[in-house]
């Protein structure tokens, strides 16, 4: 145990003085504060977005929608090294599902749900700081068409009860998956106050809950998994 005499002392091999001890406490506090600040990510903004898919079928127009919750975070503390700064997105969402024919479903997956708004709305992303870009999305009104290159991934199942029967759907050629007379009319997005969609995926895909976010073939890695998909591509319930 050290005593405070105002003179340097060597205690257990460590050089100790009054001033250095006080200084050490201050430095320790600064370091702790810096680390705390560096480790904290702040939420930049959040919104609910409604994604709607409209399909022309031989039996008329069919639509499906899903309301998704998006949160944008950033950790750009000046106490962090530049390479360690990051912005990220968390998503709570279900895929859009459209029953295009009895027992036949089209799914628009949630894989790009976190970026689809910024890629669909008329926002000059290059000209805006990240916080303003997020604010612009939050303030967006009206229904907007999702541009072709920002479409979500579209899939269907030959047998909706068999996860491994999943197949990619070409948005420009729905007939290849569903037969003649099927056409994608539009995919639209809007900011909304509606509550998020929950439970629809588990209704349609009875096996989804048991998959627990794993690969569709039940394997440990993606090898052999059809399209490399996991349950998280259909529903993300945590945020």
């Amino acid at each position, binding site marked *: 145990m050290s005593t405070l005499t105002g003179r340097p002392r060597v205690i257990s091999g460590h050089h100790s003085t009054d001033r250095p001890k006080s200084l050490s406490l201050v430095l320790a506090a600064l370091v702790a504060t810096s680390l705390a600040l560096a480790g904290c990510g702040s939420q930049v903004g959040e919104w609910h977005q409604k994604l709607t898919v409209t399909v022309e079928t031989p039996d008329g127009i069919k639509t499906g929608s899903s309301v998704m919750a998006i949160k944008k975070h950033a950790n750009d503390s000046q106490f962090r090294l530049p390479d360690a700064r990051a912005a990220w997105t968390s998503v709570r969402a279900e895929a859009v599902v459209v029953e295009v024919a009895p027992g036949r479903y089209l799914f628009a997956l949630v894989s790009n749900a976190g970026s689809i708004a910024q*890629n669909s709305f008329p926002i000059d992303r290059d000209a805006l700081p990240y916080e303003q870009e997020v604010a612009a999305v939050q303030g967006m009104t009206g229904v907007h068409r999702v541009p072709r290159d920002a479409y979500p991934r579209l899939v269907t199942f030959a047998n909706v009860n068999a996860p491994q029967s999943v197949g990619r759907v070409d948005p420009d050629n729905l007939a290849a998956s569903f037969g003649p007379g099927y056409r994608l009319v539009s995919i639209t997005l809007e900011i909304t106050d509606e509550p998020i969609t929950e439970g629809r995926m588990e209704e349609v895909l009875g096996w989804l809950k048991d998959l627990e*976010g794993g690969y569709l073939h039940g394997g440990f890695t993606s090898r052999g998994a059809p399209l490399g998909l996991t349950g998280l591509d259909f529903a993300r319930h945590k945020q």
Partner: protein
Amino acid sequence: MTISKDLFLAILSMDAYNRGYGAGITDNGNDDPDGLGVSTDTQDYFIGNAKIIDSKGDAEAQAAGFYAIAYEIEDGAGITGLSTGDTVISYRGTGAMAQPSQAG
């Protein structure tokens, strides 16, 4: 033209950050998070002479902030120190990006 093993491994180590969930570089393209015109971590896509053969980025991996991708060298003649058929595994652990519900 040949490149060194170290250079190619460095490229693949960076590639892991731009594939799968939480890819660092994203663009507007569907299934094109790295902007290189290829899909995410879908098997049989190539980066250079390396073919993607496997990956780990499901809910279990995301919960731990982990992602890994495996490649097989298809033509070792272009890379000094690597041979055709060699397997390379590239992985990352990303704290802030490890949100289990992350997408897009």
